[in-house]
């Protein structure tokens, strides 16, 4: 009889790259479904084009250019595609979505060596590329179509940004929004921004399944809350309040799903908390003092660059070595 001989351990956990990525997709589904319900078929089209082109580009690059085995089965391209799509307004034309996908997969991921090697979050690189290339399309938002009070115009954050630039009190803007509706939906904005509750549900799912640890996300939320509390406390006419900042824009999507990306976040809990503080603080600085209304994407990308350093500085405690 032939015996199989290999070193220990002889059993393996249920985790695989594919199962973890699939869990992220499952966690994103509630928010994605909400956005399709709110925005209709055009949102579905944006998400579908984004996912399909991310997967397609990865397949083309691995098979066509690199002549290697395709890596699309690990589901990471699906996650990137879904995240990218959820970061775009539903009015984005299909070719623009494809361009974003090409930048995300082609430039941010594959040029660095594929999964695990990229320094910056691919979906965010794709999104920011589109934001700086096509600012008009990317910052015009149309309110949910299924509701009587659907509107065309700006998101809360861009209204606030305008108010700050014009010198009008931000309270005139923030008073238009109730936090309850911000939490549930109906704000205008990209799919990923529309339903905070659905996103948080996905986040809880990821934590319960032990796919991610909550520290990075909580650290971002705490820093955003604390920073805005201080500024708002000093001048509530100029600066928005903590609850508004936590619930508006892409903060929840960014903090729950983009900042927690394995590849581009620190390994240790300590490093993760510092990483989160950096993202929270930079986000608030950009929101308060920057010319862009929203700062989460930039903040995460900037902190992505610090990850190797954070990994070097913050290691977990070794056993028996005080």
């Amino acid at each position, binding site marked *: 009889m032939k*015996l199989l*001989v290999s*070193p*220990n351990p002889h059993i393996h956990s249920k985790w695989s790259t594919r199962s973890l990525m699939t869990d992220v997709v499952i966690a994103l589904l509630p928010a994605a479904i909400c956005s399709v319900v709110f925005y209709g078929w055009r949102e579905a089209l944006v998400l579908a084009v984004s996912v399909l082109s991310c997967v397609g580009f990865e397949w083309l690059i691995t098979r066509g250019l690199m002549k290697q085995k395709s890596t699309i089965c690990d589901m*990471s391209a699906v996650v990137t595609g879904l995240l990218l799509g959820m970061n775009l307004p539903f009015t984005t034309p299909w070719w623009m979505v494809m361009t974003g996908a090409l930048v995300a997969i082609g430039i941010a991921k594959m040029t660095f060596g594929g999964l695990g090697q990229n320094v910056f979050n691919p979906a965010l690189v794709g999104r920011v590329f589109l934001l700086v290339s096509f600012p008009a399309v990317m910052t015009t938002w149309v309110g949910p179509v299924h509701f009587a009070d659907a509107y065309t115009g700006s998101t809360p954050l861009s209204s606030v940004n305008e108010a700050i630039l014009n010198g009008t009190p931000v309270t005139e803007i923030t008073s238009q929004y109730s936090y309850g509706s911000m939490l549930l939906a109906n704000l205008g904005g990209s799919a990923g921004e529309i339903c905070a509750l659905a996103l948080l549900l996905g986040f809880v799912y990821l934590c319960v399944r032990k796919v991610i640890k909550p520290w990075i996300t909580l650290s971002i939320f705490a820093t955003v809350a604390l920073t805005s509390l201080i500024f708002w406390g000093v001048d509530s006419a100029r600066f928005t309040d903590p609850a508004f900042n936590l619930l508006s824009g892409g903060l929840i999507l960014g903090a729950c799903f983009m900042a927690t990306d*394995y590849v581009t976040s620190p*390994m240790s809990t300590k490093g993760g908390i510092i990483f989160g503080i950096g993202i929270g603080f930079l986000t608030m600085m950009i929101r308060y003092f920057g010319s862009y209304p929203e700062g989460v994407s930039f903040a995460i990308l900037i902190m992505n660059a610090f990850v190797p350093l954070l990994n070097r500085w913050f290691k*977990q405690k070794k056993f028996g070595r005080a």
Partner: protein
Amino acid sequence: MRKPTFSIGGVHPHDSKISRECRVEPMPLPDSAYIAVAQHIGAPAKPLVAVGDKVKVGQPIAEPGGFVSAFIHASVSGTVKSIAPRADLAGNPVMTIEIAREGDEWMEGIDLSDTLVTEIPDDNKAILDKIRLGGIVGLGGATFPTHVKLSPPPGSKCERLIINGCECEPYLTSDFRCLLEKGEQVVIGAAILKQVLGGVPCTVAIEENKPEAIAHIGEVIARLRKQSPKYDGIEVMVMKMRYPQGGEKQLIDAVMHRQVGSGALPISVGAVVQNVGTALAVYDAVLKNKPLVDNTLTVTGECFPHQANLLVRVGTPLRTILEHLGGIPDEAVKVISGGPMMGKAVANLDAATLKGTSALLLLTEKQTARGEEGPCIRCGKCAEACPMGLEPFLLQKLSRIGDVEALEANAAQDCIECGCCLYSCPANIPLLDIIRLGKADAMKAIRERAAAAKAAAEAAK
């Protein structure tokens, strides 16, 4: 209250204790026993018999080959047929004494009755001698000679004895069965060890998935305490289920909240850890004059129709054991000596059991197959799982490029090879396989430096 456990890392594999209801049964004696002279940590034992000698069960057939070494006894009676190298379970030649069995004749003075002896003699030196002469080694896996562990080096003091009944490896149930069926003997063995160590308090650590054993040992301790003050200070501690809780350093951390330093021995933090099986062997050696000639072995696996816990004579061929239980099923592709996390895959079924063999586990292709290796996604699950607080993803890279200095700086030598990193890795990177090589390099560098320093000191004299 939260149950105690170790403070860093760890994983939760399914415990799969499917043989837990199987009572310990004696395995029929083998026709021949093949007793290796190197079956403990330390120097191999030196044979005391010659080919053609008649031996009885319990007769010493090899003596310690150094300070850290142990006696080895005939496990069957009969004639010494050969003393020659023989392939061990990995196929490596090990000097082995082969005894062709004739009947089952024991040495005189060995008490084979079931009568429970609860009187513990006061002479610690005599006890230690019996433990040494009985060839007792640690049966938790490391097979470190017990009498050496019980003689702390000058300047160090034992503050607590921990009896390791965690059995945190999935599938294994031999310690559990010992606790249930020989609870009295285990507790008396613990009391003997405790007395030798100077009457220190004793903790019997049992994981929460063995409630019957926890209840039984609690009752046994209460009963024995009424008989003699020698049983005072022995307590059961219910541990949270977590692998590798039975690892010596992890268990000390869990029970005493003290961390044994890198390269240091448990006694440096005042701890001595002994396995349940060892405590039982100590009882047998000290109070029944019975040296270590047999041990309990779990034979298990989902694909195996006859789960069993067997009392097996040391030196019984693995094939004989499996055939006694109906042979190897077709679906089984791997036979493991020990548990699925740290056990060794058997390459040679003709190899015989050793004192420290705790289980034979049969796994199917599906259960043991490793997934295809993918790129590291930097999820950090390996670092999260490492009970030594190391960074397996980093050590793996350093091992691949052979950076010994960086390996040492990142504590590769602290790796206990528990397998948690590879178990957790979603990308199926053979982390432990590769780190093991880097660890060996780092250990070699440390040893060479120590040797050079010693030589320099000698030269300076």
